[in-house]
């Protein structure tokens, strides 16, 4: 008789194939379905435009082909703005967030008030605020720092980002069990050391998913700069529609822009969800 085997009439272990698509297959299937759905809607709108447009002039596909690179350039400008204001907002927001958990009330209360104020004000109003109230240049003696409109827009978008990052940082720090603080204290770590060497490294991991979420929201909010007269993807789309003056092209043109944003933001959303799930399990 062989060791480790049995000839008793028992059910042999077997591996059943998955009944429903699971693991990697399910999100892939869902993504494929979403992309297919979006493509069908877009193609449908294009066909509609093609069919209803005047036969004597350029076809809808030709016009779209002509404008797509320009719209894409505008979209890239949106992304540039989103990178810069995210960087600025994160830098300021981290300071505010750490300020919010400071033991000194003189630091904590203003940080809290500023966070609440900028978090509860509409993004568009803050953008107007920055556009109208910032000077177009700052003179520091002989040097003058110019503030063109797009830099003001970056600052305007960075204000709400900073407030949201501040809340993310505060939440992340708060989510670390207080035992960590106490044991660090018992090991004679100073408060600053505890924060930098113990709390923040742990909290950092938990802050990544909400931070990415905020980035996706900011990317979508960058279209607001078209309202204050900066040339972004939405402005270019509108200009294209005005230039062609073909009302039946509006549906596919706007859908094209929507799909560009979707193609960029949807993977971020999926990644955020995946990270959230992973960090949840490890705790």
């Amino acid at each position, binding site marked *: 008789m062989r060791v480790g085997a049995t000839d008793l009439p028992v059910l042999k272990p077997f591996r059943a194939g998955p009944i429903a698509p699971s693991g990697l297959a399910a999100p892939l299937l869902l993504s494929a379905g979403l992309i297919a759905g979006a493509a069908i809607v877009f193609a449908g709108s294009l066909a509609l435009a093609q069919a209803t447009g005047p036969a004597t002039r350029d076809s809808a596909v030709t016009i779209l082909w002509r404008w797509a690179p320009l719209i894409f350039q505008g979209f890239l400008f949106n992304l540039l703005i989103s990178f810069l204001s995210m960087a600025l907002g994160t830098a300021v927001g981290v300071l505010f967030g750490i300020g919010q958990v400071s033991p000194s009330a003189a630091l904590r209360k203003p940080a809290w008030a500023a966070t609440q104020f900028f978090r509860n004000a*509409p993004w568009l*109003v803050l953008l107007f605020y920055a556009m109208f109230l910032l000077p177009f240049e700052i003179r520091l003696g002989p040097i003058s720092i110019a503030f063109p409109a797009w830099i003001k827009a970056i600052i305007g978008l960075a204000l709400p980002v900073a407030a949201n990052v501040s809340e993310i940082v505060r939440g992340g720090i708060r989510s670390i069990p207080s035992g960590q603080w106490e044991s660090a204290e018992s090991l004679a770590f100073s408060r600053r050391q505890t924060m930098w060497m113990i709390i923040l490294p742990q909290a950092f991991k938990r802050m990544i998913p909400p931070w990415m979420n905020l980035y996706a929201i900011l990317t979508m909010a960058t279209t607001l700069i078209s309202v204050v007269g900066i040339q972004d993807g939405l402005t270019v789309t509108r200009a294209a529609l005005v230039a062609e003056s073909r009302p039946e092209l509006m*549906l596919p043109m706007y859908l094209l822009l929507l799909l560009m944003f979707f193609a960029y933001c949807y993977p971020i959303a999926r990644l955020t969800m995946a990270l959230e799930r992973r960090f949840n399990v490890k705790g």
Partner: protein
Amino acid sequence: MSQMIAAFFERLNDTQGLNFSIFYDAFDRSRFLTGLWTTTYICVASILASLAIGLIGVWIAGSGSRLGRLLVRTYVQFFRNTPPLVQLSFFYFAVGGVLPTVSDGFGGQSPLISGTGWAIIAFSLFAGAFNVEIFRAGIEAVPETMVEAAESLGYTRFQLWRQIVLPLAFRICLPALNNNLVNLVKTTTLAYAIGVPELLYAASQIWSEMFNVREMMNVLLVVYVLLVGVLVWIMHRWEKAMRIPGYMP
């Protein structure tokens, strides 16, 4: 009283150069109040509609139909991952442009759905997509055993939802819902882009005529923070009133 306030702000303008025209100029005040009313109207209408969309969406997503589930997922992902301003432009210019116009009775043609109407539709769909996800998370948090117990007692799916799942799920997802509705109130400023005479639009009209950008900007920010504050206060009251002792954290 109102005379005194008007006199105070008029003096403030004369002596300090701080021009809060909405407090002493009847025309500006009425414009501003109209804007405030429009914003409130859009907020309330889209909050109610988005809640309805969230409920319907989560109902379809939870039913057995595979197609229904796919449709709801597509809707949610699409509206969550595209800019609300482009959505609004899409609805107002593109869809609104395709729709037929109706005669307004004075020989002119007016669009079937006004700018305000499109704003409400676009914001409801935008916030509704988030609400579907929020309600789903709440429903998933309802203990499975409770649903099973109710099923074993012969509840139909509708009864089960109405009497057991939704009341519990609603309490669980109130904080997240709170966040989303606050976000919706802030999103209503986008209606400015399609010329709906809401608060931001009214304020911009005033500051372009009176040249009091700084003052109006601050008034605007304070008004929005107050509006959000009122909503948060109502939601907190509600949250407290619906709390089940010992069940929820």
